[in-house]
């Protein structure tokens, strides 16, 4: 499927470069707003790789701009700045940009807006898109459950939003599946990017006995600390192999490039429409980084099998029976969670200690 898609995009690219050679239209301007620096080697870095892919793909037909390290509380100014300076398509790449994106979009009906990880599309010029990162969490949870010796997995969480809670639950369920004794300790840091704080949180978790660290923050600090302290970790949003050659077990890699290219193409073709995209391992928006070669072969095989099962839909991250933390039934035997419930997830599943902050 992916192969077929790259073939069609390649064909589209050929058609485009042919037409670009004759037409002297103004280039389409595409803007990006990032929550962290492009050098975070995680979330924002990966979005910027997508932007670079757009530049590479379209050449002179497209002009791109980005604004990095835009605080979520102050995003409206940055988004408006891009809208006012003649951008045709604007990608806003953090959950906290949801309200400002929709507000600016209402004022600029001719500009197309794409908001990552959100769910509000108030006007027809707003689309939302995200990866099914929780699918990758199933793979990570499986590996973590197998590898842990202390049976304590540490999880560094950013903000208590459904996407993050979903990741925690998916990881825990997958780890529990292979290791019934596993316990998960969650630390909320209330930031997407703060290497020092993420490092401190990692140390606190290790101090409490965690020997595998999972993170839902954007910097490479947790993996670096894991490497230094001799415990395990995972690459988050990007592969991060360089930051913990021994500690890194695998990674979740966000691949935005095909989506960014397709949406830019839609604007050029005039076929852009408001839509909601939520792609997982199958479509390649969420992909799984290489497994640490130091892992025993059977764990690597198991992880690969899980990856394939999730990608092909044979296994769903949330398959019943699953109870909520308070013991009430959430999913009956064999039942899988629907997307709507997943998008609004605000509870822990049974077995996770602590409460979701509100």
């Amino acid at each position, binding site marked *: 499927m992916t192969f077929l898609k790259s073939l069609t995009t390649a064909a589209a690219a050929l058609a485009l470069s042919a037409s670009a050679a004759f037409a002297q239209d103004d280039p389409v301007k595409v803007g990006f707003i990032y929550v*962290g*620096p*492009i*050098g*975070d*080697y995680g979330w924002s870095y990966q979005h910027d790789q997508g932007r670079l892919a757009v530049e590479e793909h379209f050449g002179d037909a497209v002009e791109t701009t980005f604004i990095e*390290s835009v605080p979520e509380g102050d995003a409206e100014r940055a988004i408006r700045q891009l809208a006012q300076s003649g951008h045709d398509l604007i990608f806003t790449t953090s959950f906290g940009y949801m309200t400002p994106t929709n507000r600016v979009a209402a004022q600029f009906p001719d500009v197309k807006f794409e908001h990552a990880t959100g769910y509000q599309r108030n006007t027809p010029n707003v689309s939302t898109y995200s990866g099914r990162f929780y699918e990758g969490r199933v793979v990570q949870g499986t590996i973590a459950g197998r590898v842990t010796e202390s049976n304590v997995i*540490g999880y560094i969480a950013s903000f208590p939003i459904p996407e993050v809670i979903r990741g925690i639950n998916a990881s825990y369920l997958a780890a529990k599946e292979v290791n019934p004794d596993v316990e998960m*300790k*969650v*630390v*909320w*840091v*209330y*930031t997407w*990017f*703060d*290497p*020092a*704080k993420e*490092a*401190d*949180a990692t*140390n*606190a*978790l290790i*101090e*409490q006995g*965690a020997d595998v660290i999972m993170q839902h923050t954007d*910097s*490479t*600090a947790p993996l*670096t*600390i894991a490497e*230094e302290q001799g415990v395990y970790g995972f690459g988050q949003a990007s592969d991060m192999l*360089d*930051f913990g050659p021994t500690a890194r077990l695998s990674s979740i890699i966000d691949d935005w490039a095909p989506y960014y290219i397709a949406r830019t193409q839609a604007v050029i073709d005039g076929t852009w429409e408001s839509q909601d995209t939520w792609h997982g391992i199958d479509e390649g928006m969420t992909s799984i980084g290489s497994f640490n070669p130091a892992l025993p072969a059977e764990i690597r095989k198991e992880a690969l099998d899980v990856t394939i099962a999730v990608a092909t839909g044979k296994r769903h991250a949330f398959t019943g029976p699953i109870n909520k933390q308070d013991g009430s039934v959430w999913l009956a035997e064999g039942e899988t969670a629907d997307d709507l419930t997943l998008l609004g997830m605000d509870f822990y599943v049974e077995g996770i*200690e*602590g*409460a979701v*902050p509100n």
Partner: protein
Amino acid sequence: MDPVALIASLIVAATPLVLAATGELIAEKSGVLNLGVEGMMIIGAICGFIGAVTTGSPVFGFISGALGGALVSMTFGVLTQVFLSNQVATGLALTLFGLGLSALLGQQYTGLRPPSTDQLFPTVLSDLPVIGRIVFSHDWMVYTALLLTGAVWWFLNKSRGGLILRAVGESHVAAHALGYPVVLIRLAAIAFGGALAGLGGAYLSLVRVPQWNEGMTAGIGWIALAIVVFASWKPGRVILGAWLFGGVTILQLNLQAMGVNIPTAYLSMTPYLMTIIVLVIMSSDRNRAALNAPASLGRVFHASG
């Protein structure tokens, strides 16, 4: 929970704050408000990292971090002291400049590991129960930071040089009339502030996180600025403030890891709330001198006046 481990990690977490806030304190005591602490710290972080990685010596790393911080603070110094630009605007510009320049300098340095900074005391001491972990288990930079703050206290309160620096900060016109080179003294104070901010930044990239990451200071420079106000310009209270601010963060992370149910959002807020409260008390008090704020803070000095 283990309070010993908590206090030990608190001291490490507070070290960049101690350094940067002490440096800023000297600059402000001379009457200069430099809001560019964040920028100088991040320059220190990358210069220190480059220095340490290239030579393999953390000592050299810290020295280059301090030099980098001092050097970049001189752009602020020259602009505000020689060309009389607005200190607030120039300081903010310095922060933006530092963040950008450090990203440029650091392009080749992501994913590398710095050489580790040695523990100062032998393991005989650091293995002592309780005291060992809290007092003797740290790297030498932790003690250097505390010594520097002590030296600054001595300089400000016990030396003639400190008296002159404070005079410049209280009334630059009077100091000028007495024949003191106001601009030169302020430039020196700014450079010292830059060097210490640079050291604090280098501590982040060499010890606390150990890696180079763009924008890795993530607002710590602003907390250092708040601590100076919180400490009402007294070096001893800077240490207290840094431990309190750093401690709250460490405490809430550890409590969470232990599974204690606490409203973390509020706990994360407390340092900022404390600063606001201190600011309110300070501004409501007519007798500002009692709170130690330098009277000429942020004012432009022009010798021909």
